[in-house]
């Protein structure tokens, strides 16, 4: 399974956490598309806590965290 965590506005109309079978997803982009998130809305993509690009491959056991643009201090 792949655990997908959604934050801030990306939660609107979606769950906070989505568990996906790893088969059928080769990159993070596939997951974003599967969840119907417009590409431009994801500003920060973490895989297992590290910043990655949407082309990064995903595998069973990964935690994918998606954030819209955020700031604060």
């Amino acid at each position: 399974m792949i655990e997908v965590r959604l934050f801030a506005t990306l939660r609107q109309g979606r769950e906070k956490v989505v568990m996906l079978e790893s088969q059928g997803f080769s990159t993070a982009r596939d997951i974003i598309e599967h969840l119907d998130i417009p590409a431009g809305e994801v500003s920060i993509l973490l895989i297992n806590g590290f910043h990655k690009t949407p082309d990064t491959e995903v595998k069973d056991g990964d935690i994918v965290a998606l954030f819209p643009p955020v700031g604060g201090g």
Partner: protein
Amino acid sequence: MAGAYYEKIARINLSTGEIKVEPLDLELAHKFIGGRGLGTKILYDEGVATVDPLSPENKLIYITGPMTGAAAPSTGRYMVVTKSPLTGMIACSNSGGIWGAKLKHAGWDAIIVEGQAPEWTYISIEDDKIQLLDAREYLGMMSEEMDTKLKEKHGPTASVLNIGPAGEKQVLLAAIMNDKDRAAGRSGVGAVMGSKRLKAIVVKSSRIKLDNIADEEALKAATKRAMDVLMANPVTSSGLKQLGTAILVNIINNVGSLPTKNWQESYYEQAEDISGEALAEKYLVRPGACYRCPIACGRIINVNGHVTGGPEYEPLWAYGANCGNNDLNVIDECNMLCNEYGLDAISTPCTIAAAMELYQRGAIKEEDCAGVPLEWGSTKALVEWTKRMGNPETELDWLMSSGSARLCEHYGMPELSMSVKKQEMPAYDARGIQGIGITYATSNRGGCHVRGYMISPEVLGLPQQLDRTVTDDKAVWAKTFQDLTAVIDSMGHCLFTSFAMGAPEYTDLLNAATGTNWTVEQVLEIGDRIYNIERMFNKAAGMKPEDDRLPKRLLNDPIVNGPSKGMVSQLPLTLPQYYEARGWVNAFPTDETLKKLGLDECIGK
């Protein structure tokens, strides 16, 4: 009276009651911009670095920048500049709301308060008229109530700045509050105000805007460009309004850099419970904004029926993960207590976290705790100890209200204080995010994130994404961020505008308002100059090279859990790189650097 300065400073001696009006040295103002830069320069020149911070010899400067109160984005900021009783070095605390804009509209660039009043006093400013009034009836009053009372007395257009019980008692973690829920929070500036027996400053102005802009048309154009940039950026146009700074709880936790239980861990399983998302869902009434701010990051929330300013990211973390507490309602309550007593909402909970670790290790005993043991996650302890620190009575109350460095030193475990220069570090673990450690270690006011917010590039990808785990180029990035921040703080804009705006926008605004003709490079050089004059103040105050440090835990103990497990701070590698970028040797500027920056008066000091 041109170029966004009113060229007027009020010098108020509370010992004698004398009020002098002095001209602003315009050349000096241009060289240091105003606010943080000019305030520090004045303090340095007047020899304040060597005085006892809580003695009548210390000076307390409330200072605006040229943009404060101007018709440009987020210009409600003023600075409190003084010698800190917490760090013994420069204190420079920034606050928003509307008080600073009113002070400027009343025609004052700065107020310098000296001496010590024979009886508790407050200052009333109505345009040119400054009066010293009796404050005795307000003693012991909470900050918000006093704000209400003074508004009743001086009228609804008055804006109030005051200290609560903590400042009165000269608690080293005391803040200065204004407009009820805005705080010049850090470095114990409230204690300095208390030491002068100054309870409040009320400001009224008949002007409602600046009428001394050098080039109104140019300012309009520069403001339009700045607004376009702010509105085109999703963070400043809608992100901060929707979720406030609290949005960071989840992201910082997800990169494994949310310090937990006094930095013993760096990933908090219950972070979701104390997140910006949870705050918005459960308690948010509406966003709040300071003067002329389109960003509106403030949180107006409902705490047990009381509608008030809500917690920022920092107190959410500090009263939450850092104390092992996931009860959001209690964080809201504690944040409100900090505002009421007038306490720093970062250092206060961080000191409680240090005390909880001392308790965990058996240094503080149950019998020392007067019925409220300092157990991790105890909501009763968080509420009760905040109250005790805001109005200390027992020996342990006093020790805790003096901050974690003095507390941990007292128990013979100084390494448990997660502070730099005796001021508590904020909510980002510098082991998991390499560049922010440089900011912490070299910040002139001690542990602090807003002196060079490396989280922007290292985590948020603004203006570009850097790898948080490596040290490459981070020293130069940190220096540049520090210099630009010094400019923004000195101009009187809110730092949050910089999530979208860059040096070119600030340069345009400054030139339009003040009639200068700086290039972007020259403006950044002013920032560099400001950073160096602060450093020279610290040197005169007795700072040592070893004060540019991080707690041993960050250097020696790898992160134990979460995604950043195994990481330590590489500061020993980056610090020399940083000094090189600054033109410093052993933590201080060389004569050559001082000369290059036009700080000849500091050479040989």
